């Protein structure tokens, strides 16, 4: 069965957009505490633009969907999260080869590695990597263990959420929160929070596909 097609990826982006819009103020408030109070506005603007671009073009190729999202995010978000989420989708688009769950997992991991390369952060630095990394690991592990994509994505979303929660006590070493030093501890990272929405959106949008 075709698990990952243009429609599925488009649904993923739509669902991510919906969640970001819904959580816009919450994301901004998290960013206000340890950053500059724009993360919700940034992603809301970017994801809305990505949906508009997909609607204007409706790419037929799955990789083209991801590429459109990537370039739109890069063109419209700015800040740290724009290039990072943009790179995520760009690398995922480049790595997408096939239409099953494993192909999706490979693409997502390539995206994650793109974020690592672009942002030069590590897990534990209190960034979106702390949600994305565990999610990729959980996805690979579940698929490797023969679990269906549905269940694997659910596990990935749970891992992302756990990773997100684990950012609370961390002292930030990258991004704007790092300027706060010790004062950054005790706050949840906004990027890890939005990244969890991204994985959550995949689990929802691709549900029932395998």
């Amino acid at each position: 069965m075709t698990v990952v097609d243009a429609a599925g990826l488009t649904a993923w982006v739509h669902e991510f957009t919906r969640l970001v819009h819904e959580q816009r103020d919450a994301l901004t408030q998290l960013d206000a505490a340890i950053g500059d109070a724009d993360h919700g506005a940034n992603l809301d603007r970017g994801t809305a633009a990505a949906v508009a671009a997909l609607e204007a073009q409706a790419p037929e190729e799955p990789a083209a969907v991801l590429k459109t999202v990537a370039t739109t995010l890069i063109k419209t978000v700015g800040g740290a999260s724009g290039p990072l989420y943009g790179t995520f989708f760009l690398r995922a688009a480049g790595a997408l080869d096939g239409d099953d769950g494993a192909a999706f997992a490979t693409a997502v991991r390539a995206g994650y590695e793109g974020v690592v390369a672009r942002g030069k952060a590590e897990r534990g630095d209190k960034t979106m990597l702390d949600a994305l990394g565990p999610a990729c690991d959980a996805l690979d592990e579940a698929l490797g263990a023969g679990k269906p994509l549905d269940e694997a994505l659910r596990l990935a979303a749970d891992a992302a959420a756990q990773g997100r929660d684990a950012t609370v006590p961390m002292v930030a070493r990258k991004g704007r929160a790092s300027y706060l030093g010790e004062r950054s501890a005790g706050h949840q990272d906004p990027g890890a929070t939005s990244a969890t929405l991204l994985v959550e959106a995949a689990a929802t949008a691709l549900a029932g596909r395998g």
Partner: protein
Amino acid sequence: MKKLINDPADVVPEALRGMAAAHPELRVDHENRVVFRGDAPVRGKVGLVSGGGSGHEPMHAGFVGTGMLDAACAGEVFTSPVPDQVAAATQGVDGGAGVLHIVKNYTGDVMNFEMAAELAAAESDTEVVAVVVDDDVAVQNSLYTAGRRGVGVTVLLEKLAGAAAEEGRPLAEVAEIARRVNATGRSMGMALTSCTVPAAGRPTFDLPDDEMEIGIGIHGEPGRRRVPLAPAREVAEMLVEPVLSDLDMTGGDGVIAFVNGMGGTPLLELYLMYAEVVAVLEKAGVGVARNLVGSYMTSLDMAGCSVTLLRADDELLRLWDAPVRTPALRWGA
């Protein structure tokens, strides 16, 4: 939230419209949100491009003009511009002598300018050199962190490198002056109140009536520590001393001293602060060769100030005194 705006989402394009109307000597590319010198690109001159999030006015667009920047990219409020903007600016100021990117050291700014440079390299053979400004002593500098922020030195650097470019110096020399300025300047800031990001609609942080934040950035980032309100005299010490202990400013030709308002602080207080800063410097044996007092790099409506000191030498003083003709800084021209 009390602001003279319409829809918070339209603040940046609408303000650019006002800039264009107020300054017919500039050219505003509204699509890309880039403010250009009216005569850009200037043949044979190194082009200077800067930019960053909006909300810091007059920086950067107010520094576009003869003797300073060739173009400024306006991002959303507190959000670095996107690569396309920077690429359009780069292309628009390329007079054949290469382009200098002046980038404040924030993760987003650095990445977006990097991606723009990659775009420029792929699409043209414009030579681009980037200088990253990181002068904020409130932040620890380390390879393992995001490093120091770029703050007040940016204004001085744009003036000094702009003067060098205006003299017709080649890209390598202009970049080397910019790096020297960054290496010899340091800043420290404080806030009496938070700013309010229009799209967020409420103050970024709460600050009790009897406290202030020391070591804040220019994006409403909270500072390193919160302390009881203190008289200007003590605030001056809290700002100047960390700067002096980070970088030796004694001897030589003195410093360029810059007392900057954060947007909500009246000039009356800035002059008063400047008197206190001079007093602290005098005690430390540091002479002031030139000064700048005013709100040049703001953080929306935040009340507070920052102090920037730059160790001067003959060449830097000559470049400082060179004519500049921009909306916000203007002399000798």
